[in-house]
């Protein structure tokens, strides 16, 4: 088999290296075209995500895929950096290990957040882009299609994707759903306009939230965030009124002390008429005084509370890791058996053709020398030659078929060399 993967990921490489090797979607096609100019006899799939950049190369013939050093030189040249800068942080896996690695990546077992769902679509996208750029080999097709199938199998047979593990996803995708039936008709108040607020808002929109009011000390940042999510900008002076009508509050300001104290909430509570409110206090230090949590129909969750939930979910996902790994090992073995069968099938056919040709040549030569033989005798001689060839080939072919794939792989190579068969 002629498959290898080289690249960098969060396991081995620094953020700096990952940043240097990261490709945007627009950069991938030009890179692939340049690759084919330099290595026309092999093929490549480039997978580039936040946490990894990997180059899967394959070829029909051996010794055609570029060596690690060649590829690093080429990549460094494409990215405009020195090969020595990245050399030590690049890994390589070949054949069986490369297949297992791809299966693990597609199934998100190799991800920073085990079980994250995005990676499979990124693998599909990388494969699709490679197919669009050049007609890929059967090997690339087989290995990527198998990887996608294995990822789906793991998703169906384990619960590795079952629980959410990021703070915003747990807050909105899990907790908010236990309080609200739907978010479409809820008033959502966002305090702060930083990354955490934006990330959480993204989940709110995904879950159907539409009615946002953003309040921030810096009105420009609030406007920017409001424009992104089609929300309104509120005035900090209207905080009491906004809190009184909100169903869900996401608070992630950079304030150094609580922005909503007990006194303010007393006024808010009076106006709310005990309407339930879900408050996500994602700020450190906290934006809401802890005592507010004790009020009737107030569900106040802090970053600590959410992180505990995330950690529990992370552990739950980890508990499914061994089962998923077992599936990957099993699938990788099956994949190789299949490759082996296909490969030995073509070698056997080649060997049979070669011996048939030799037999036919000798038979023709003999028949030319023997003038006066009957048809019956001619037939007897032909059958005798056939039996001889079959008896010679039978033991090695039987060994190839009955031995384990590992042993038969070695036999296959030996047979190719002994009988001088091509690939």
């Amino acid at each position: 088999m002629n498959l290898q993967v080289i690249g960098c990921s969060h396991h081995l490489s620094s953020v700096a290296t990952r940043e240097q090797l990261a490709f945007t979607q627009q950069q991938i096609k030009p890179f692939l075209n340049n690759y084919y100019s330099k290595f026309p006899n092999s093929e490549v799939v480039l997978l580039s995500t936040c946490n990894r950049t990997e180059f899967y190369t394959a070829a029909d013939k051996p010794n055609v895929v570029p060596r690690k050093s060649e590829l690093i030189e080429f990549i460094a040249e494409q990215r405009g950096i020195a090969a020595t800068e990245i050399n030590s942080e690049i890994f390589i896996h070949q054949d069986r290990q490369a297949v297992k690695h791809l299966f693990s990546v597609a199934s998100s077992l190799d991800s920073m957040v085990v079980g994250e769902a995005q990676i499979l679509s990124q693998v599909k996208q990388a494969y699709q882009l490679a197919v669009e750029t050049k007609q890929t080999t059967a090997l690339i097709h087989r290995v990527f299609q198998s990887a996608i199938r294995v990822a789906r199998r793991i998703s169906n047979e384990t619960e590795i994707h079952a629980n959410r593990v990021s703070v915003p996803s747990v807050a909105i995708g899990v907790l908010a759903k236990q309080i609200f039936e739907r978010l479409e008709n809820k008033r959502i108040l966002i305090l702060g306009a930083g990354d955490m607020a934006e990330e959480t808002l993204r989940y709110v929109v995904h879950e159907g939230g539409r009615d946002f009011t953003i309040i921030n000390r810096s009105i420009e940042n609030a406007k920017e965030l409001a424009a992104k999510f089609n929300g309104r900008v509120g005035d900090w002076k209207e905080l009491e009124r906004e809190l009184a009508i909100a169903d869900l509050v996401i608070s992630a300001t950079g304030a150094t002390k609580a922005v909503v104290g007990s006194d303010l909430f007393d006024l808010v509570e009076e106006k709310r008429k005990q309407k339930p409110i879900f408050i996500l206090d994602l700020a450190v230090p906290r934006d809401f005084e802890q005592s507010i949590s004790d009020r009737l129909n107030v569900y106040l969750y802090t970053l600590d509370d959410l992180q505990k939930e995330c950690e529990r979910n992370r552990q739950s996902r980890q508990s499914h890791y061994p089962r998923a790994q077992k599936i990957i090992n099993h699938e990788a073995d099956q994949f190789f058996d299949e490759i082996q069968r296909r490969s030995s099938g073509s070698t056997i056919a080649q060997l049979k053709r070669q011996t048939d040709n030799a037999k036919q040549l000798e038979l023709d030569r003999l028949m030319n020398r023997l003038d006066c033989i009957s048809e019956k005798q001619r037939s007897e001689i032909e059958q005798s030659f056939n039996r001889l060839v079959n008896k010679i080939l039978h033991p090695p072919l039987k060994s190839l078929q009955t031995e384990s794939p590992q042993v038969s792989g070695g036999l296959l190579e030996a047979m190719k060399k002994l009988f001088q068969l091509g690939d």
Partner: protein
Amino acid sequence: MDWLQNISITCFAASYAVVFVLEVSRVFFDVSFRKYVRVGFAAAGLFAHTVFLVLQGKLVLASTGLWLGSWLGWCLATAWILALAYIWISIRQPKSVIGLFLIPLLLGLIGLGVGFGHENQFNPMEAKSTWNMIHGSALLLGTAIVALGFVFGVVYVVQSRRLKHKSPQAKYFRLPSLEWLQKSSEYSLIISTVLLAIGLVSGIAINWTHQPDNTLSSGGTIAWSNPVIWSSGILFSWLLLVSVFSFFYQPSRQGRKIAYLVIASFLFLVLELAIVWGVGHATTNSEPGVAQLSQIQLGPEESLRVTEGPTI
């Protein structure tokens, strides 16, 4: 279709018991096909329950002119409504284990009917009028809705308490959202108030028109000293007060308060039913020659039929 005659209370009670066991198992582990088995058993139970009520009800109707015949029939009919509600909730809220709270109530009603219902037969002479039919049907539906409201209220309190204390959600112990539970509790309170109002008004009408010698006339008086009358009056007043209060005073229909109100309404109802049952309201001893639903044999192996008492 003779086999339909063999359906007994044990058949559907067993089906519901299996559903309950399946609901309990949902708390501990997940199996993808279980929801089909669970809803399948509930549907099978409901089918058997329906057939039982229809066939046996027909016999009792032919014999006494009453549809349910006794408190047993009344309990079974209420349980039937709850079983229907269970299937509806299973479809609307497939992931929640609300059946864990609803099915015991349903089984409890069947058990109550089987255990004590046969002692109290409805009085055929009293129950045949239109007013009586309205009275019985409204109270039956009202009871079922109050019972449902009770389940929603209890689940609300459990879910709200869990969220308030930030207890982790057990892996498979999922409950509906607070919003859904609050809305369902609110609706059950309003609908049950309307139904119990109809029940009470029709009860007053019966009292107003029904003279002790079983003749109908106008200008009768209401026996306010009768425990059934005053307890019904208190229950209705409570529900009306709660509904009106909820309408005009927003906090009372928010969050846990509505849950506590529907739970309290259920407790009132239980008290009311205990009084009604205790004083033998609308019931009489079995009359000779009259078929009774309570006389149906309960064993699954036996053919279920209505037996007749000795004739004079």
